[in-house]
C-alpha cells in the first residue's frame, strides 16, 4: 500500500526544538517548521497541512491563541499543543477554545509524539471522510427527491388525461356501454392517482423546511371538506372552530395532516349507515391548537390501533395505500405535533391532534 505522507506543521520560537523535531521525524513525515505564528500562517496558506503542532509559550502569541485565531480559517488540520510546564489554565483553555486534539509536555518523548501525530492524522482523515460522505449523501438525497418529484408530475399528467376521458365517457352516456370495463379503468386510475399524490406528499414532507404562516382554520377546514367531500355528498359535517387567537404554523404540513384525516373519515364510512357524520372541532389557544376529527364510520380494530401509523400498514377490509396515516404521523413529527386515536366498531373513530402555535 502506498501510504500518503502526512504533512505536519510545527511552530515554536526555539529553533533548537525545530531542529530536534526535524531530526527525529523527517523520515516519517513531510515537515514544515515555523519560528513564529505569522510564519506558520504563511505556510498554512500555501500548504494543505494535516497536523499542526504549536508551542504554547511563544513571545507574541500563545499556542492556544494561535489555534483560536485559525479556528474559522483553517478548521480542518488536527491540533497538538506542546508545553514545557504543566499549566492547568492553559490546558483548560486549550480544551475549551482551541479545539485541540492532544496536549503534550516538553521535553517530548519521540514515541509518544509519533503516536500522537499518527492519531491526529487519523482524526483528520475521519473528519474529512465524514464530510465527503455527508456531501455525497446530500447530493444523492437531493437527486432522489427531484427524481421522485418530476416522475410524479410526469406520471400524473397523462393519468389525469385518462381520468378526463373517463369523465367524458360518462357525459356522453357511454360509461356502461362496455360492461364494467370503463368502471374498472376509473377505479384503477383513481387508485394510481391516489398513490402518486401520497408519494408526493411523503417526499415533500421529508424535504421541505418548515415555513410558518398565519393559518385561518375556518377557511382551511372548509376548503378541505370541499375538496374531499366532492366524491361523497352523503356525509354530514359538523364543524366547530374556535379561533380568537392568531395561529402560526406550517401551512403545508397542517394541510396534509388534516386533509388525510378528513379524507379517511369520509372514505371509511359504514356503507349501511344512513346518517354518515364527521365532526370536526378546532380550538386555537395561545400556545397550541387542539383538533379533533370524529366519524361514525367502520372503526379501527383494537389490535390494529398500534399499527395504523406504520408505513404500508393496511387492513384487509380497507383499500388504502397504507401511506395516509404514516404521512400524518411523519408530518406531525416534523412540526412537533401529537396525535392520539380512539376507535371502536360501534362509535367509530376519533383522532385528536395538538400542534404548537409558533406565533
Amino acid at each position: 500500500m502506498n501510504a500518503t505522507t502526512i504533512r505536519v506543521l510545527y511552530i515554536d520560537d526555539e529553533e533548537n526544538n525545530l531542529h530536534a523535531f526535524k531530526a527525529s521525524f523527517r523520515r516519517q513525515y513531510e515537515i514544515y517548521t515555523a519560528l513564529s505564528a505569522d510564519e506558520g500562517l504563511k505556510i498554512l496558506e500555501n500548504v494543505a497541512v494535516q497536523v499542526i503542532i504549536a508551542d504554547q509559550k511563544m513571545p507574541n502569541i500563545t499556542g492556544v491563541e494561535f489555534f483560536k485565531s485559525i479556528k474559522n480559517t483553517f478548521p480542518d488540520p488536527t491540533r497538538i499543543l506542546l508545553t514545557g510546564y504543566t499549566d492547568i489554565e492553559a490546558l483548560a483553555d486549550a480544551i475549551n477554545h482551541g479545539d485541540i486534539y492532544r496536549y503534550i509536555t516538553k521535553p517530548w518523548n519521540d514515541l509518544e509524539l509519533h503516536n500522537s501525530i499518527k492519531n491526529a492524522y487519523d482524526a483528520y482523515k475521519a473528519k474529512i471522510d465524514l464530510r465527503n460522505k455527508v456531501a455525497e449523501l446530500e447530493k444523492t438525497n437531493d437527486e432522489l427527491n427531484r427524481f421522485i418529484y418530476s416522475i410524479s408530475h410526469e406520471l400524473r399528467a397523462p393519468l389525469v388525461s385518462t381520468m378526463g376521458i373517463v369523465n367524458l365517457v360518462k357525459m356522453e352516456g357511454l360509461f356502461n356501454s362496455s360492461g364494467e370495463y370503463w368502471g374498472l379503468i376509473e377505479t384503477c386510475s383513481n387508485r394510481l392517482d391516489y398513490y402518486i399524490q401520497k408519494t408526493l406528499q411523503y417526499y415533500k414532507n421529508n424535504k421541505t423546511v418548515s415555513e410558518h404562516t398565519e393559518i385561518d382554520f375556518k377557511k382551511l377546514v372548509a376548503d378541505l371538506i370541499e375538496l374531499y367531500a366532492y366524491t361523497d355528498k352523503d356525509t354530514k359535517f359538523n364543524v366547530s372552530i374556535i379561533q380568537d387567537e392568531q395561529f402560526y404554523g406550517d401551512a403545508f404540513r397542517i394541510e396534509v395532516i388534516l386533509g388525510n384525516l378528513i379524507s379517511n373519515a369520509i372514505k371509511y364510512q359504514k356503507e349501511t349507515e344512513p346518517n354518515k357524520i364527521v365532526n370536526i372541532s378546532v380550538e386555537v389557544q395561545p400556545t397550541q391548537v387542539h383538533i379533533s376529527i370524529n366519524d361514525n364510520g367502520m372503526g379501527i380494530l383494537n389490535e390494529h390501533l398500534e399499527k395504523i401509523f406504520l408505513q404500508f400498514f393496511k387492513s384487509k377490509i380497507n383499500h388504502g395505500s397504507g401511506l395516509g396515516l404514516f404521512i400524518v404521523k411523519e408530518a406531525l413529527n416534523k412540526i412537533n405535533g401529537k396525535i392520539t386515536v380512539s376507535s371502536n366498531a360501534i362509535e367509530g373513530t376519533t383522532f385528536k391532534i395538538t400542534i404548537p402555535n409558533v406565533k
Partner: protein
Amino acid sequence: MLNKLRTVMLIDDNEVDLKINSKIITITNLFDKIILCHSGEEALNYLSRNKNEDDKIPDFILLDIQMPEMDGFEFLEIYKGLPKSITDKCVVAILSSTLDFGDIKRAEANPHVVRLFRKPLFPKELEEELKKHL
C-alpha cells in the same frame, strides 16, 4: 340564459387535454366558441392580433401551468401588460394537474387568476365559477 355568444380560450401544450376539455365544454354548452392554443406564445399572438375586435377576444381563459418554454405564470406576466380592452374582458382561470404547493399558492395569489381548477376538469365546477363572472 345570456343571448350573447360566449368564447373560451384553452391554453395547453397537451393535445389530448385540449381535445378532452374542448369536448367537455362542447357537450355542456358552457361556451359557444372555443379557441385552442398550444402555447402561451400562440395565445398572446392571438390576443394582440385581435385586440381591436371585441367579438374575437375570449370571455374566459383556461390556462395550463406546466408548459415548455413559456409556462402559465410567465404567460400571466406578459398578459397583464396587454391593453385593458383585453384584460378587462377576459377572466383567467388556471387548469392544471399540478400538486405543487408552491404552484397552487402562486396561482391563488395571482390577482389575474380567479380560480385554480384541477385536471380533470369537472363541468360543474366550471359552471359554478362562470356564474360568478359571466
